[in-house]
């Protein structure tokens, strides 16, 4: 088993999303696990082919929404009942129906902020550089019109020549070695 530290992996380029999904299935069947696909738009069936688990974005969003809503309501309660009570004709201080609009808005705000920042954090973004950006064809086509599959060097089955040969056999149009810097 060959493992060179300056190699990130080997990347194959496909012309259509169907070829890519097929290649991902074959690569997993061959026993590779540290693989990642790169596509210019979300491709249906790719997450299943890669056997991705459910992600945590919805959970983070739920927590953010609950925090915004409960925090928002009890903050208003605290302001109106404890910190700054105003007795207006003996009306109840905890006039909760009047607190609902702000509670609702803060629920949405908390959920939306945590959905976006949670997604970015789980994705490890912002990350200005990535080894794949060393591959000229990747930069040129990955965000436009081609589909890429990378077998990473940290995969136990990875072997530069054999993995490249294997990908070539899956009808890839180009194969590139990815240097790690």
């Amino acid at each position, binding site marked *: 088993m060959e493992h060179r530290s300056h190699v990130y992996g080997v990347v194959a380029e496909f012309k259509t999303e169907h070829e890519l999904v097929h290649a991902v299935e074959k690569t997993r069947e061959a026993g590779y696990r540290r693989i990642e696909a790169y596509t210019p738009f979300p491709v249906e069936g*790719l997450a299943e082919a890669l056997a991705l688990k459910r992600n945590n974005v919805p959970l983070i969003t739920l927590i953010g*929404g609950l925090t915004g809503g409960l925090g928002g309501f009890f903050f208003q309660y605290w302001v109106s009942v404890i910190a700054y009570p105003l007795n207006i004709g003996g009306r109840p201080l905890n*006039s909760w129906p009047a607190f609902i609009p702000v509670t609702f*808005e803060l629920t949405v705000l908390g959920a939306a902020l945590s959905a976006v920042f949670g997604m970015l954090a789980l994705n490890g973004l912002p990350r200005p550089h990535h080894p794949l950006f060393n591959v000229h064809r990747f930069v040129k086509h*990955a*965000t*436009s*019109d081609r589909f890429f599959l990378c077998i990473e060097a940290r995969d136990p089955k990875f072997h530069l020549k054999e993995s490249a040969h294997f990908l070539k056999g899956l009808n890839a149009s180009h194969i590139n070695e990815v240097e790690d810097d």
Partner: protein
Amino acid sequence: MSAGQPPIDSPQIRRLSPVLGPGHTFTSVTDKISSIVLTRPTSLGWVAGFAVSFSLVMILTIALAWLITKGVGIWGINIPIGWGFAIVNFVWWIGIGHAGTLISAILFLLNQKWRTSINRFAEAMTLFAVACAGIFPLLHTGRPWMSYYMFPYPSTMGLWPQFRSPLIWDVFAVSTYGTVSLLFWFVGLIPDLATLRDRALTKPKQIIYGMLAMGWRGSARHWHRYQSAYLLLAGLATPLVLSVHTVVSFDFATAIVPGWHTTIFPPYFVAGAIYSGFAMVLTIAIPLRKAYGLEDFITMRHLENMAMVMLATGLIVAYGYFFEYFMSIYSGNKFDLYLTQMRFHGPYSHFYYALILCNILTPQLLWSHKARTNIPLLFVMSLVVNLGMWLERFVIVVISLTRDFMPSAWGRYSATVWDYATFAGTIGLFVMLLFLFVRVMPAISIAEMRELVAETSEDHE
């Protein structure tokens, strides 16, 4: 299928125009949309349009400088008509923004493919409209430099905002709406910013788009979370957009002023917001597709669908007007009844008749397929609806305030040159921001267009 029906490909069945012109590939949509930003030279028309709108922004800055120097007395507002243009314009602008969110969120949840090529600039329109809207209540406070008082912050005076006030609800609704719209727009832009980064030819562009794209590389794991986040944002933005104009309508409906104190306001305000918003999307889409040759992406199908949404929401608005009228008679409340008389026969009745003409009568033309596919007519119609919706807010704000309970408290309102200058200035600001937007950001979502190419090519197989 019953025997009497014609076959599916029969010429008797009018085929819908496609949502995407034929023959497009991943490469062609990417090239076409990114070239508008990256390689296309700045046209004379763009410079002219930018110059005109920028001049209006200069008028806005003068009007605001004079306002801050002299105070809100330079406007036409008085007692009893304390609201005037500022609130009319605020409600008008915030309503316009609603179509952007509707297109990007609600149509996304409903899986409407035709939303794809119009959602990006409709979302930008939302942001710019909210920015214009925000100016008015801020200045209407009289001392905009003290407006932070409306936010809850631990002050040395121990003061806190009054959370039972609809005006504080407004602060939260509008600022949440602005923030969520910005997030939604930006999340949608990330993959396209990466495309621009990778296709930019000059170093500064590569660096700026590169920083904004945050290193997006289209990884399947990223897309997986991205899609979850986008779907959740759409789900959150949907009730949010309904809540925003509802809260705006509470500014009126919680007051006891005749003509404002009605429960029909929230749904009727939301329908009106979507009505004027779709009109504004048409006002922008028609010149945009012409100027940048985007007829393949923003097809007749889009224009026709938007016209139909306009017709439908226009009918809801008409229903609202009718029930305002009916309830004032049916309730037997003499103040409500008098207000209705004032709308038909009072000093501002010409505004009311113009409103009926613009918002109810003219849009009935849209029942006809011919009218919906006549682009110049559609453009004029969108302007008429925009005007009509502005008149609606004028009628609501001004007629009610000039004729409330006691004749001794009646008054008249007329806008001053500074009111008009501020209003024209915000229109300039809106248009200027749109001009800048189409030059520096992809006006159509490239990633979603690729998805559409993939989906439509599957349909043909």
